[in-house]
């Protein structure tokens, strides 16, 4: 009887902690609702509660967080997704945020796509040195009146914690790495805060079992097994996300069909590579080229004698015809022999560095 009570007690504690984990992991999940009213829900468990605030628009300033302290860790929450519709192109755009230093980010090279339809824009804010600290409030400045924002999302950008490099910016924009996109916004799948509660739960269970070890030898003998079960259940709850990410990645990759020569050419992305010193953007660019340009297309590369340039040649030459001032590497043009019949010209555009945006 006593053993059953202990187990019930443990389960109750586990459920309480689990519930608080659910609540807290969604604490900072802010979004506009279907009426384009900004809401900051405390948790999915209170999803039906009233929005805490509404969006404010004051002249050219567009407040996207309410007058409360969000308390977001900038180092963690650094991925911004903006779904907006514009009627004109805007050359400048600022993301302001208030922390102790009242930081400001300016995206000089960003332009909304003028297609009169809602489009997703992705910002990897960690690429800016200014981003950081505790983020209490966010707002956009110099935003023209005819910009319509459908949704805004600030979330964790995940694998970049592993290999934080600018070359990752393209791949980290994939939906599977952004909790909250594609309906994957359940707290169990939303990431880091959950670990604290798993940790707390496990430690409490271990301590309680340790206490009872000397009182209840039966339970004590089984505690490694119980521990293993706790580990497995906790692991599975997170592993669902890994599996689901793999699935989304598979869907994404399948649509790219790299190995087939029939990829439809889409609009040139361009504007990604700056000076040779900006080699950090090179591989984002390569990824985009390989996503959008049909195999065997002709690529014109502006003349350069840089090391980056040589690398670019090497990397494109196996799948494309590369044309440019290619003294050193022109023989590489013969890399891919079997080109599709209808090759399509594709001109690269080189522009200022630090371009962060690409458009899907």
């Amino acid at each position: 009887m006593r053993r059953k009570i202990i187990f019930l007690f443990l389960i109750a504690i586990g459920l309480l902690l689990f519930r608080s984990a659910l609540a807290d992991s969604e604490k900072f999940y802010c979004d506009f609702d279907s009426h384009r009213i900004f809401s900051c829900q405390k948790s999915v468990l209170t999803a039906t509660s009233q929005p805490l605030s509404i969006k404010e628009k004051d002249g050219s300033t567009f407040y996207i967080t309410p007058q409360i302290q969000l308390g977001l860790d900038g180092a963690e929450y650094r991925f911004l997704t903006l779904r907006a519709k514009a009627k004109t192109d805007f050359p400048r755009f600022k993301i302001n945020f208030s922390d102790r230093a009242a930081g400001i980010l300016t995206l000089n090279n960003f332009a909304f796509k003028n297609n009169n339809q809602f489009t997703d824009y992705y910002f990897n804010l960690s690429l800016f040195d200014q981003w950081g600290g505790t983020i209490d409030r966010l707002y956009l400045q110099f935003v023209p009146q005819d910009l319509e924002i459908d949704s805004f999302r600030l979330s964790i950008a995940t694998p970049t914690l592993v290999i934080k490099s600018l070359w990752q910016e393209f791949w980290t924009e994939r939906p599977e790495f952004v909790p909250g996109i594609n309906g994957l916004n359940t707290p169990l799948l939303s990431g880091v805060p959950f670990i604290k509660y798993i940790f707390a739960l496990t430690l409490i269970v271990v301590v309680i079992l340790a206490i009872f070890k000397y009182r209840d030898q039966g339970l004590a003998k089984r505690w490694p097994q119980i521990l293993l079960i706790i580990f497995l259940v906790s692991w599975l709850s997170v592993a669902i996300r890994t599996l689901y990410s793999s699935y989304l990645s598979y869907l994404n990759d399948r649509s790219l069909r790299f190995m087939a020569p029939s990829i439809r050419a889409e609009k040139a992305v361009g504007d990604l590579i700056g000076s040779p010193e900006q080699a950090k953007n090179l591989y984002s660019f390569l990824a985009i080229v390989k996503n959008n340009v049909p195999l065997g297309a002709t690529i014109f590369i502006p003349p350069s004698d840089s090391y980056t340039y040589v690398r670019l040649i090497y990397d494109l030459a196996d799948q494309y015809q590369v044309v440019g001032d290619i003294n050193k590497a022109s023989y590489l043009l013969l890399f891919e022999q079997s080109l599709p019949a209808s090759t399509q010209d594709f001109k690269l555009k080189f522009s200022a560095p630090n371009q962060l945006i690409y458009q899907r």
Partner: protein
Amino acid sequence: MMLDFFNLIFSVIGPIVFGLVLINLCFPHTRFGRLEILVLGYALGTGLISGAMFLLSLLGLNLSIIFDILLIGSAIAATILIWRRKSFGPQLVKIKTKWPVDKKKIILIIILLLWMAIQIIFIATESWLKPIVQYDAVATWSLKAKIFFTHHQLILNSHSPYFLGTHLPQYPLHLPLLETWQALSLGRFQDSAIKIVWPLYYLGLIIIFGFNLLRHSSLLKTIIFTFFLGTLPLLVYHAGYDYADLILAFYLLATLIYFWRGAIEDNHQYYYLAGVFAALSVWTKNEGLFLALIIILSWLIYLWTRRRFKLKLLIPILLFIVLLLPWLIFKAICRLGLGNIDSVWQLGWHPQVLPIIFAHLVGTIDWNIWWLIFVVSLITFWRKLWTRENLLLFLSVVGTLGFYLVLYLFTPNANYVASGMIDQRNLLTIAPLGIFYVGLLFSYNYDKI
């Protein structure tokens, strides 16, 4: 297309054949599972091929001729295998294990196996559908392979702008040469096809982990810990891309496991095998040198405490040194360092990395809850941690972790930790050792050593 398929198959079968011949001739008194020996064959064979490509290049041969030599070599190796199939050296064993009686456990096992199978399929598609795009993968490994393949030689002239593939020439050549081998087999540099190597190593890692844990653990526990390893998010991520860390993780785990098995079964040939894998880990990444040395040192301490130390047991260390000698001499002649920062030996004190490392380790995105499991397990089994049975594993795991901690706390590598570049991928190389160790801690039924 069909030809491509056969070429791709050959690029995998070739190393396996080489490796099997090597195992057959050099380690005849060993026992392996059937899948396990295939994995070992591939891992040894790739090392043999990349090593041969390097050595023959030193003789001035270009890669086309070297490929022809390896092609003929693989035909000879296949002939040897067929010829000796009845007297194949190592004993192929089926590991005795019991399926649990409890239906719930059986269902759990099936679910976990299915889950892993789906994960493996996704990894394979991830690898096959994308070209190589990650910066490190391209610049450090794949670009070199492309340059070697294009030039049809290794470019050993240190005055050439393409010397050893241009970028970071001090890095070992196992991966670039392995990718070159794939490209030579295919006849062209097809990113997606070349990436087949990574899912294979991932699969191999799981297989040698599972097979060796199963010898000392129940089926359910083995499946659970293999599941932990196989679904470790960072490992899954690396399995789909072209970083060297997964492959280093494989060789380090193989080194530790076969030292440990040699100790358990008192069979010196496992030690020799471990010595070869230790050399291959250095041939894969520079830090492999220190990590392999730590494992070797742990093994020597283990032997010393067990009073089993004999001069004959220095053979694995000699193997380790001899296999690496050409590469190390070449590096010394060309004055190639070990790290990718010149100031690595400028010692300092960088305690600011500790909270960063902690934040990385508790991130479920990369590690699920592995490090939590690790710490809680060590606390739980604290009395068994360094018993004589566990000493080798304990010293290796703690030693390698300690090595990285020292590296981050006292060298300029701290800057890379601060920028989030290295600590995760470094720890990935030793995470499988920890999982294996914890897996064994949960399994009480050791054979008597």
